[in-house]
């Protein structure tokens, strides 16, 4: 039985090819596992994988899928993967609670205009941002990026957020919920934004990339302190490959097929959607906006300094 299990690369477990992989660039760990989500944000990483950018650095990156950023981070804390992709919020919350020694390894995306918005449908009573007070707004979950960014944008416009009914919901379900009147508005990132406008005639009430949340850092890669300290060369190789991939991601024709393949978006939506701003190098001052927002919205109770959480940045 054990022999069967061992021989089953087909099961998706430890690969028997562990010894292989061109790991002679002196990397401490030439093969790493990264927990990923099926999202548009990861197009550059998919490019680095498919285009052989990691291989060129002597690094083999094995993808492990996770259903959410929180789950992705749990896989990392549990030791199943070395690096986790998530929105920034869970990383900072885990750090502030002392749940894990989180280090941020590489940036992934920031809010670009028209890539994240609070939307409404024609039948909804919500017409402008001022109508959002006291309404039912769909978000992915409390204290996630979707919740806090919506709160921040509403506050920017002086809209009362205290009586809003937040309705947690999976992103693909939000356009249906808007159509059926189950919610009055909803936070949507791409590609759901394009899909909702196509399917439900959804229109933005407010673009997230405005005011206090303009260029807001949305998601990135995190790891544990122990891994970061032990594997500086491996991390630098990962960062260099990602930096190159992000540069090449400016060419949309390279990115679109990867979005269709990995984020499971249909080709038409992929060609229409607004891409977020891809980045790879973390800037402590810019990233500080995330824990600051968490503090403002009361998710964190004490100020958290982002700078010490940053792993050394290559190039």
């Amino acid at each position, binding site marked *: *039985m054990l022999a*069967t*299990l061992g021989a*089953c690369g*087909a*099961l*998706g*477990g*430890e690969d028997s090819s562990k010894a292989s992989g061109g790991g002679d660039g002196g990397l401490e760990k030439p093969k790493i596992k990264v*927990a990923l*989500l*099926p*999202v*548009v944000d990861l197009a550059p990483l998919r490019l680095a994988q498919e285009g052989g950018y990691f291989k060129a650095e002597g690094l083999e990156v*094995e*993808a*492990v*899928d*996770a*259903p*959410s950023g929180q*789950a*992705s981070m*749990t*896989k990392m804390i*549990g*030791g*199943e993967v070395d690096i986790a992709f998530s929105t920034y919020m869970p990383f900072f919350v885990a750090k502030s609670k002392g749940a894990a020694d989180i280090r941020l390894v590489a940036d992934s995306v920031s809010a670009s205009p028209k890539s994240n918005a609070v939307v409404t449908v024609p039948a909804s009573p919500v017409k402008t941002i001022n109508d959002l007070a006291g309404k039912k707004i769909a978000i992915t979950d409390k204290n996630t990026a979707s919740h806090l960014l919506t709160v921040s944008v509403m506050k920017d416009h002086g809209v009362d957020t205290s009586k809003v009914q937040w309705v947690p919901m*999976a*992103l*693909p379900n939000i356009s*249906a919920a808007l*159509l059926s009147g189950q919610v009055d508005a909803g936070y949507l990132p791409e*590609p*759901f934004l*394009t*899909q909702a406008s*196509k*399917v439900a005639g959804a229109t933005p009430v407010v673009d997230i990339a405005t005011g206090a949340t303009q260029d807001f850092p949305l998601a990135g890669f995190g790891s544990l302190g122990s891994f970061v300290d032990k594997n500086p060369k491996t991390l630098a190789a990962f960062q260099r490959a990602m930096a190159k991939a992000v540069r090449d991601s400016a060419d949309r024709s390279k990115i679109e097929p990867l979005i269709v393949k*990995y*984020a*499971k*978006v*249909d080709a038409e*939506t992929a060609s229409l959607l607004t891409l977020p701003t891809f980045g790879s190098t973390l800037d402590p001052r810019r990233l500080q906006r995330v824990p600051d927002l968490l503090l403002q919205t009361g998710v964190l109770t004490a100020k958290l300094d982002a700078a010490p959480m940053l792993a050394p940045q290559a190039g």
Partner: protein
Amino acid sequence: MPRFLRALAGLAGFFLVWEVIVQAGLVRKEFLPPPSVVLVTIFEQFGETQFIRDLIATFLAWAIALLIAVAIAVPAGLLLGSIPGLRTATAVVVEFLRPIPAVALIPLVLLLIGGGPEAKITLAVYASLWPIMFNTIYALGEIDPVLMETAKACGTGKFRTLTSVALPHTAPFVFTGVRLSANIALIAVVSTEFLAGAKLGIGNFIMQASTGSTRFDLVLAGTVVVGALGFLINGGLEMIGRRAFRWSTVDREAIS
């Protein structure tokens, strides 16, 4: 075989109702693609190596889990069924563990043994142990005492009685347990892939298609394929059961 064909006719009817509901506009096509779309998507996916690998990973995990469950549950059932004292002593623990849904143990299993294929196999084994074990215990309790007395009177040893009297009698019951567990194991494997995320697996395929996307046809394609897999597994086991235990009427009596 005609039974198999009749079953397929029912399935065709189900697809027809689904198609009509969508085409009549009762549900939006974008949210619930009709079977005419989903079946084409399934056909396309069978040309994708990734999908085939997902399917194989799920099937292998299922097969391994069921084998392990049988290997544990049958001896355990025989032991508990033949030693009443032991059965009484363990009854509370068993009744406490049995109702815990395998998926509720996902967080624990992820922490203890990680999220690799071991996780889904462990949970599927856990979920599918019980029907096999209970059917084994039940079967031992149901053995005609006359048979056992006769064996005893003929001077048959304990071990011999177990292998040539008790086992042939219990086997069809045990097999019914295995058949029930086969579907339970499949459910556990796919749910774990879906809820915990994995490297490969149909549950993982459905999860990816549902969280990251606007492609509900992929979600349903994965779902329909899991259904078909369960249908084939059950049909296959039913056939094996009918051939292997011709003398038995259990299959016709037991809940299936």
